[in-house]
């Protein structure tokens, strides 16, 4: 953990409604550098709404999101210009989609997918781009021989790993993940979780992971938040929360997990 006295991300009282329906109400938390926070809850509980609002992908109706930028200290994300927000989103942040096709260019080779962010930042040397892409494919356990293949020809697990490489190539400090492991079979899930745990530790990467899978939260996250009907009903250290749930809904969630 960094010794910094300021959090990397400070979220205060954000809310979002769709017409009359409240999708998210008064969510607040701090995220520290290198910390992994899991957001759990059933479908429709507001997890993804929270993630999109915090990642500045949709504007919340109320509340504030502050990010500790490399240059200017804690800055209000929604006070930034669109250009600044987008720059942040492709340098210091990453976003891993549930469906890899949303986060990848499916008809463009794996190498170009990994290199796109770098080219966007002005890298104009083909040889270096290729070396970096190859190195990142190795780090996410994809055979570098496949650097010129399109992700369309990749398996689900490989696509998800490629998406991670594409996001991490600019060495972001914060990654948002929306159900990164759902839709993968259990052995592939285990490998991906292992990889994520390794990468977050190596890179001192902070992450917010939205998941409905408590096992993912237990394996990856230092802290977790439980959401129900757009509200955060319980938050705390992962093992504490899973082993000694206080809120009735958390108790229900924990007791619903199937034991093989």
């Amino acid at each position, binding site marked *: 953990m960094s010794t910094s006295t300021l959090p990397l991300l400070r979220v205060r009282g954000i809310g979002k409604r769709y017409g009359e329906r409240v999708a998210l109400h008064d969510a607040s938390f701090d995220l520290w550098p290198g910390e992994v926070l899991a957001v759990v809850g059933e479908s429709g509980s507001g997890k993804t709404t929270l993630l999109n609002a915090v990642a500045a992908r949709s504007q919340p109706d109320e509340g504030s999101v502050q990010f500790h930028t490399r240059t200017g200290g804690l800055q209000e994300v929604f006070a930034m210009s*669109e*250009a600044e927000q*987008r720059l942040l989103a492709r340098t210091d942040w990453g976003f891993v989609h549930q469906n890899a096709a949303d986060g990848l*260019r499916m008809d*463009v*080779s794996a*190498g*170009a997918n990994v*290199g*796109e*962010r*770098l*080219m*966007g*930042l002005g890298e*104009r*040397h*083909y*040889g270096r*781009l*290729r070396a970096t892409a190859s190195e990142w494919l190795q780090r996410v356990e994809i055979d570098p021989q496949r*650097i*010129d293949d399109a992700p369309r020809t990749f398996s689900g697990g490989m696509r998800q790993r490629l998406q991670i490489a594409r996001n991490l190539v600019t060495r972001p400090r914060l990654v948002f993940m929306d159900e990164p492991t759902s839709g993968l079979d259990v052995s592939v899930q285990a490998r991906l979780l292992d990889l994520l745990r390794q990468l977050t530790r190596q890179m001192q990467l902070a992450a917010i992971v939205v998941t409905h899978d408590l096992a993912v939260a237990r394996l990856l996250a230092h802290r977790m938040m439980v959401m129900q009907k757009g509200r955060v009903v319980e938050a705390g250290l992962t093992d504490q929360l899973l082993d000694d749930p206080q809120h009735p809904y958390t108790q229900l969630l924990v007791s619903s997990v199937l034991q093989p």
Partner: protein
Amino acid sequence: MTDVNINFAYLDERTKRMIRRAILKAVAIPGYQVPFGSREMPLPYGWGTGGIQVTAAVIGPKDVLKVIDQGSDDTVNAVNIRRFFERTTGVVTTTRTRQATLIQTRHRIPEAPLAEGQVLVYQVPVPEPMQRLEPRETVTRTLHGLAEYGLMHVKLYEDIARYGHIATTYDYPVLVNGRYVMSPSPIPKFDNPKMHMNPALQLFGAGREKRIYAVPPYTAVESLGFEDHPFEVQRWDAACALCGATHSFLDEVITDDSGTRMHVCSDSDYCQSRQQSPATPAPQLEEVA
């Protein structure tokens, strides 16, 4: 020969004014695609309806018009457009690049250097250079607005990854005035360096896509590339079989059934003027900045 029942240059005056406004805006923001109310023309889309509307909006009775298609003055597209303007304006037409004040072109820039005061009008099928990689126009407009052009290099990267070199040979993307990435229309990349710091005004009209853009005289036009795979133009091992030119864009023409072929200049006016006076110097290709 002018048809008295048709307004000068076919379009009505209000339409011409609307197009001129779009052109002025395009000249003020080099490389930026200005939307305009493209009209139905008595030609099908793909035949140069955008270029014709731009020409119609800027042409005056004293203009001397030249129309080329693939460098040639006598192919069907060029002949038809030239006859269209002869009938609707009565202006003098020419095939000589140096005599023309207004040149409408499809797929080439003339070999003879252009001069101040000349206007070159391009026919553009697809004005958006990123369309192949990003089909949503809402997105490409944002990318232009914020000058986020990483995507353009993704395309060139893919070329090198697949073919070992940048295989794009026409419609090769350029950066105009250090700001907007622009499609130069399907001219061969051989012609790209001619756009750079050209003394003539270059106007681009896309009729179906309803966009006008421009490169004003003496504007920097840089072809994109990588440091280790820079932009390069095509070269030929042959010289023109008719005029002997070695620095012009050559077409390969098959002359019989047994595969005999010859290389000839694609710019027919340039080739003929060299045949008449072989002393005509080859144009110097300017270096790209």
